[in-house]
Each structure stands twice: as structure tokens, then as C-alpha cells.
């Protein structure tokens, strides 16, 4: 069985996003970028399934500019076998990414597609679900455990108030939550090896996908600055304050 893992290059989780002075978006010039953390968990899960003998090959794919190759190399260093880079210099929306993934899945016929539940830059949380809809295949989202059992997969989902386990017929789509696993460090020898692993370059056009944006960004604004707090002397004073504010 092949596993396809789509990954995205995003602003690093340690970097503080800063708006461009004209308010058109987040300033990414010379800001550290890295593999989306949820996608890293997806790569780790796929590599573990390969190490267990469940999967035969792990293919990673990224849609993005030339530098998206960096996160593909990271994924290859973690243990993926080969990579596909779908080059696009423009931002690609989740629906278009899902269509690209559907086209690639048509060529590669993976038994499992594991995605991060969302990218930490736009927090859309849509691509996996849209892909399942477009392909007409079952989905197990927010996975905290994935067990492949013959021609089906058991996915434990993190839902409000607890865990839910669903059984999906393969091929299926799984999106990862934070607690699924702890991704490994890529070792130096594996980073070296990753440089010579195969990496194919495609374009949305040759996959027959139109990536023209359907959404217009109206405004990007920073969250409002939180006002300073006040100290109250004791519990009675607190209760009185809350009453004044009409919340108690």
C-alpha cells in the first residue's frame, strides 16, 4: 500500500507573525518557515506505518513556491521515500489543493492519504474534508490513533467530550491531531540521504487544475491589544466588581 502525505510550508511556530504595513497580509520576508507541525505528525505516522510493514511506500507532496522543496526534503529526511512538488507561486486555496491532491491520487492510487488537520498559517481545516468529498472516499478527521486492519482503518478521533473510533474502508483520508504521535528528529545521515531521494516537479496546469482564487481577502488585522488588568483586594471586592460588570 502507498501512503500519500500532503505537506505545507508555513511560518514557523516560534515566529511572531507581523502584518505588512499596508495590511495586505503577513510579512514573511526572511521569517523562518518550516514544515506545518500537523503535517509533520502526518509524515511521522506514515513512516511508522511503513516501518511496521503496513505501507510499502510513503509519498510526500507539497503545493507551493520553489522553496516548498525545503519542507519536502525535511519529510524525506524523516523517512518518506519520494516527493512531488506542485509548483505554484500564487497562494493556493484549500479547494484547489484538494483538487490537485485528487488528481495526484488518481495517478498514484494511494491506499491512505494522511494530512495535517490544518495548516497553522491560515487555520482553514478544510483540505482533508474537501478531498474526501471530491473523491467520494471515507474520512477520519482529528485522529489521535490510526490502526490499519486489513482493508480498513480504525481511526480514533478527538471530539468534544471524548474519543470516537470510526472504521473506514480503504482507500481513506485521515487528518491528524496533535496527540497522534511525537515526530522524530531528522538525523544528519538521513538529511544527507534525503538530498538524493527522487523529487518530481509538476504544475497545477499539467494536473488539469485551475488554481485561480475564489476568495478575496478583505482585510488582515492584528488581534486587539488586551487592556491592562486590575488588582482587587479580596473576594468581596471581586464579587462586587463582577456585579458592576453585570456578569454575576
Amino acid at each position, binding site marked *: 500500500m502507498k501512503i500519500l502525505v500532503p505537506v505545507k510550508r508555513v511560518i*514557523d511556530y*516560534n*515566529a*511572531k507573525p*507581523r502584518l505588512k*504595513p499596508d495590511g495586505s497580509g503577513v510579512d514573511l*520576508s*526572511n*521569517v*523562518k518557515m*518550516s514544515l506545518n507541525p500537523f503535517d509533520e505528525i502526518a509524515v511521522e505516522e506514515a513512516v511508522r506505518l511503513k516501518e511496521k510493514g503496513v505501507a510499502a511506500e510513503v509519498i510526500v507532496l507539497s503545493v507551493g513556491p520553489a522553496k516548498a522543496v525545503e519542507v519536502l526534503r525535511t519529510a524525506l529526511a524523516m523517512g518518506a521515500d519520494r516527493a512531488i512538488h506542485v509548483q505554484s507561486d500564487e497562494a493556493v486555496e484549500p479547494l484547489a489543493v484538494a483538487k490537485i491532491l485528487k488528481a495526484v491520487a488518481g495517478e498514484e492510487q494511494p491506499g491512505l492519504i494522511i494530512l495535517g488537520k490544518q495548516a497553522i498559517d491560515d487555520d482553514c481545516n478544510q483540505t482533508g474534508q474537501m478531498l474526501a468529498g471530491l473523491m467520494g472516499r471515507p474520512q477520519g478527521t482529528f485522529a489521535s490513533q490510526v490502526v490499519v486492519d486489513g482493508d480498513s482503518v480504525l481511526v480514533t478521533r478527538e471530539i468534544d467530550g471524548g474519543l470516537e473510533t470510526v472504521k473506514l474502508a480503504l482507500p481513506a483520508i485521515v487528518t491528524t491531531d496533535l496527540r497522534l504521535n*511525537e*515526530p*522524530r*528528529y531528522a*538525523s*544528519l*545521515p538521513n*538529511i*544527507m540521504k534525503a538530498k538524493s531521494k527522487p523529487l518530481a516537479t509538476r504544475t497545477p496546469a499539467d494536473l488539469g487544475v485551475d488554481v485561480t482564487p475564489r476568495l478575496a481577502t478583505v482585510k488582515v488585522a492584528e488581534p486587539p491589544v488586551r487592556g491592562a488588568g486590575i488588582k482587587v483586594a479580596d473576594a468581596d471586592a471581586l464579587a462586587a466588581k463582577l456585579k458592576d460588570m453585570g456578569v454575576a
Partner: protein
Amino acid sequence: MEYDVVIVGGGPAGLSAAIRLKQQDAGIRVCVLEKGSEIGAHILSGAVVDPRALDELIPDWRERDCPLAAVPVTDNRHWFLTKNGKFSVPHWLTPGWMHNKGTYTGSLGNLCRWLAAQAEELGVEIFPGFAAAEMLYDEHGAVRGVATGDMGVGRDGQPKDDYQPGMELHARYTLFAEGARGHLTKQVIAHHALDAASQPQVYGLGLKELWDIAPHKHQPGLVIHTQGWPLSDAYGGGFLYHQADGQVALGFVVGLGYRNPHLSPFGEFQRWKQHPEIRRCLEGGKRISYGARVINEGGWQSVPKLTFPGGALVGCAAGFVNVPRIKGSHTAMKSGMLAAEAAAAALSAGRGGDALDGYEAALRSSWVAKELRMVRNVQPLIARFGAILGTALAGVEMWMRTLGMGLPYTLAHHSDRGLSRKDAARPITYPAPDGVISFDRLSSVFVSNTNHEEDQPVHLHLADPALPIDRNLPLYGEPARLYCPAGVYEVTGQEEGDPRFVINPQNCLHCKTCDIKDPAANITWVTPEGGGGPNYPNM
């Protein structure tokens, strides 16, 4: 893994060495280790860069999208600040080489990102996120490479689930390009007694912020240096550079030879920004980033022996900063290039594991040596005679040497370590930050994008864990609380009569001040897990 040359540190010196090696012979296998999460992540500098070395390394750099080319220095000012005013020091008072003609202002981190791309094009293997943690010696005592640190070790020293052991990287020559006060450089200098014939190295702590300022105040190419206010117990000064994209890089350097334990370099920097002349520029703007790093100030007389069997020191690991010009990138790069040329010649002669004497000789007869000899007495004069008289004497000294009339004397340095007892020194109180122009340490560390894996051994080692409370607190008020620009060190529980010394290693900016300034040399900085530390953008 086997290489011809392993370079420890991906800054200007290390990357220039890597590029020069490949230019000499594309077949040389070169690897660069960098502890930052990416190239540039730990680079902090003003910067006004003299392109002399870059012109020699990559002559067409201006045509190759090098970010440094964006803003040539067009206006150079030198202010002497009083509490509320300023005197401009006229140009004719200083020699021509002090005027920043032909220099560029920009982010040294971005220059390094660009140099790394050039190096990778030439086939250099660059590994960011991997810290060189340990020296490797062969049976004859020659350096034979370094080992990277283990990853995935818990705070208790035990391996975690994601444990990844360090790797040995072997090389015929290892170049140490760790920057000022590198932790392996420190070991190698001690091991081979490289500093036996040189003066002690002395340092300054540089603090820097990057601001978006109001567009109508922005004058790209204007660079300003200040002396004087607010410093009275230390020597140092400020800088304010108008760079690209409506941004201003500003900062403050405090010589670490100060003796007053109540002094806080961070506090001096924040206070300096409130000077009317500086504040005027910042009002209506927004701070984007913050960082700190020590800088070598010892100059030529503190440069140690550069070579030892199997390796050499390049850049600020050796210490080639020109103090009055406040520049060291060009000399760092040149030293890396000279070491690379010597290493390439040695490799082609089939050598390895011996001392690169050719580098030592080339450096000592290069323009780096000429430039540093000219200014060798400036720092000690200011350190001894203070900002006003010292600067005047240093000015005379620089003119004499520029005119070829310098006397053949070299002043010595005093170690940075000593501090006065706290009750024998003038108390200093710093104004509370206003949150608009001046800030506290923690909100500053926040914008340095600093992160360390929390569950790992503490990377700040105390030789005697009891000393901070038993000795440093009663004698000096535990100066680590004040000299650390990142709030790593705290003393808690003093009011309850149960003082405790607390280390917050996750805040560490890797500036190395604590390794230099603890009065008993009780703190040793070692490298934390690779990839940790600040993530400076455009710094």
C-alpha cells in the same frame, strides 16, 4: 561522517571560508554546522558593513541579488549625547577611514542567508539545527572534528522516546567560526594555550532592536552613532541605522569591563531610547524584534594564536573587530577566506591534521592586521580614561597612526570579570518601561522568537550551585539578574528570607555574557539542543 573541512558556525566567517574552499577546489568536501534553526537565526549585528572582503570573495555580489546592496550609507553622523541634548562631532575631527564611505547598512543575518545560498550552489553541505557539542581529538592530540549534540535528552539527562544520538564529523581540518566566546573555541584556546602570548580578550554586550518607523521620518542610508549619556559607569555607545523597507535598526553596546554591580546593560539601552533625539525617531513606530550578543573588543593585542594541529580559529572566534569603526564582519570574512586558502593548499599537498601555519602568516600580514594595528590602543584608552578624555586621546592616537606618526606602544587590557562590592558602588535605578518606547526583558525576549525544547538538560552550568546565593548575592546583589539581557537569571524568595537562584534557560539568547561576567567564573555556557535559541528575522 568524513569531510575534508568541517566548519563550526554559519556566520560571515564560516560561510566565507566554505565558499573560498569550493572556489579553490570544487572537489573539497566541506560541511558547515549551525546551531540556529536556520542560517541567520542567531546572527545579530548593526550592521554597517565594509564590503572589502565581499568584493574579494564574490566580486559581482551587487549584481547577484545580495540584500546588502539595497542601502548604501549616504549620511554618517556622530553625536555626543548629554541628558537632554547633543553635540555633533564634526567629520574633520576623525580620520577619513572612520566616515563609512562605501559601506552598506542592512541585516547581517540576511547577508548570511544569501552567502549560504551561494555556498550551497557551490556544493557546500550546510546543516542548520545541529550544534557542535564536543571536540574530537586523535591519538596525537590533533583536532579531528567535532561531535554534534544528542537530541531528545530529558531535563534529568535520560533519553526520551525521540532520542537521537549525536554524530561524529571527522575532518582533516576543522575551522572554528563560532563567533565571540564560542564554547568549543573556549575549550580549544585553553587546551592549546593559544592565548598564552596575547592580552586577555575583552567584550562588549550589544543589544539591538528593529523598528518600523513612521514613513516621513525614514531616511534610508542615514547612520548615527552616539556616545555619552546615559552611560557613566561604563564605556559604550548607541547606534541608529536607517535601513530598507521603512525600518530602523538601533542598539546599544556596553563594555563588559564595568565594575558597578548595579549596572544593567539592558536598562541602559532602554533608557537611551528615551533620549529626546532617539525617542523622536521612534515615536509613532513599532518595535519588531529584539536580540543581544557579545562582541569582541580586545582588538589586535587580544588575537590569540590562530592555528593548532587539525584546525584554526576564524572570525570573532579569534576576535577581529575594529572597535572605533564598530565593524568586524569584513575582517571576519577575510580571515575565513585566508584560512580556506591555506586549508585548500594543504589539502592539495595531501596534508591533514597539522597546523595551518600558512593561515597564521597570511592573516598577520594581511589588511586585517594593518587595520587592527592602527586602532589597537583605542579601546584601552577609552576604558581607562572614560568617554570624554579617553575618546579625545583615542582621536589623537588614531590621527597619529593615520599620519604615520604612531608610537610603537600597545596598551594592555584588564579582564572583564571583576566587580565592586555592591555597597561600595553607586546605586543605579532604572526608570520603569513605558511599553511604547522602552520595554521589559520578557516582552523583549518574546519578539526575539526564542524557543528551546523545554524538557532538556539546563545548558548553563554552575561550577558551584551554592555560590550565587552564598557569595554573589551578599557581595554583588547577584549581578546575573542585571547583566543577562534575557531574564534567564532570577533570585526569588528574598522577602521570605529564603533566597533561591532560578535559571530560566528557555529564555537564553545565546549572547554569552554570563560566561564572561560572573565574578567567580562560575557559569559555563554550553550549547543546548540544536535548533534552540532565537529566531531572528532581518537582524
